[in-house]
């Protein structure tokens, strides 16, 4: 990549005042480190990935209101987690966390376990038990 070809596209980096450093070749054939505000191909990839998480979060919410899933699934998606990551934060086996996604199992969880989930998601137990519509 030539120095003058370093892309300066719009990206989410802008609002945090971060610029991406890339390496490019200058007029004399020497390498220099240049700052880039972003590049469209990767911005689109990131936006798509975020949109997918939002879709999964919305689906988890719908499942909660249909009584197909416990709120834990919703909060897990909201925090961009999956079962292995949530299990790691909880210090539990994955199969146990998976069971807690069932509404019937969730209803029987001890106060201690609920508190742990609430701590991981940084909300109260009251909030954990429901989802704002």
């Amino acid at each position: 990549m030539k120095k003058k070809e370093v892309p300066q596209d719009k990206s989410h980096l802008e609002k945090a005042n971060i610029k991406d450093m890339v390496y490019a070749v200058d007029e004399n054939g020497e390498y220099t480190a240049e700052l880039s505000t972003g590049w469209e191909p990767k911005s689109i990839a990131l936006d798509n990935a975020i949109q997918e998480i939002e879709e999964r979060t919305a689906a988890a919410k719908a499942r909660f209101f249909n009584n197909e899933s416990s709120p834990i699934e919703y909060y897990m998606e909201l925090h961009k987690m999956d079962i292995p990551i949530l299990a790691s934060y909880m210090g539990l086996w994955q199969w146990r966390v998976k069971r807690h996604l069932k509404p019937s199992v969730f209803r029987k969880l001890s106060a201690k376990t609920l508190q742990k989930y609430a701590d991981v998601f940084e909300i109260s137990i009251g909030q954990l038990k429901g989802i704002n519509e």
Partner: protein
Amino acid sequence: MSETLKIDFSHKQAAHCENGVVSNLMRHNGFEVSEPMVFGIGSGLLFSYLPFIKVNYAPVFTYRVLPGLVFNRFAKRVGIKVKREKFSSPKKAKARLDENLKNNNPVGLQVGVYNLIYFPDEYRFHFNAHNMVVYGKKDGQYLISDPVMESVTSLTERQLEKVRFAKGAFAPKGHIYYPTAFPEKLELESAIAKGIKQTCRDMTAPVPIVGVKAIRWVAKNIRKWPKKIGAKKTNHYLGQIVRMQEEIGTGGGGFRYIYAAFLLEAADEIHNEKLKKFSKEMTEIGDLWRDFALDASRIYKNRSSESDGYNKIADQLVAIANREENFFKRLKKAI
């Protein structure tokens, strides 16, 4: 604790966090080593495809070696010693950090990105192999030199503890590291040769999950995915490839440009003119990776699913694999 502890530390932005931390810590200790030099000597360049491990609901594609490896190899090859420690207790981890700061020793930390408040929300994923330097403490705030940031920043005790004890794959467990002993003079010449040789070996390894063979495997799968897993998932996977290749920290072209910069610098360092030509070629290979990313993005931008597009980018990957195979075979002989 309201005492002020500020180590005189010069922050310099880098493309990649681990190279940047090493380069900045080396400068602090009186050795000027550039980011590309750290990356090249540490044999950071790679390609690897791990279809059986999923991150963000997509397989793992990586353009570099495992976290920590660059510093370890670099240290061994230039003759410095590194101390590394992990903790099960956040309290002990904090005590060890404070102790080092008191001893005027800036340290490297491995942290998770998800709770790193100075990153934009969109970039905060559960990625646990980020690196930063802590160089002091002021009014209860830790002073942070994060190599991907233009300038220094700070985190509260609570914020730093959270990122040091992030959970999930590659959980940092409070991981702290710093160089402890240095030689009189860094042995760059032999280190460069060793670094290059290992990368040549890795990239042409006879296993399907690393090097050029892994690139070909991905190409093969890209042709199959649309039928097998559908266009939506395929496009999600392509997005993952492009992000791993181009997202913050690769220097562009999946680390190929950083590597080209390394070869150019190494040519002068070990007086090998041939490396300059190799550097130019590596830049061209980086450009091919950029073209691939651009064409892949055209597919997922429109969320389209014409199979022609998939075959075309698969062809591009095969061409890149052939080019890299030929490149690393010749580079090995030139050293």
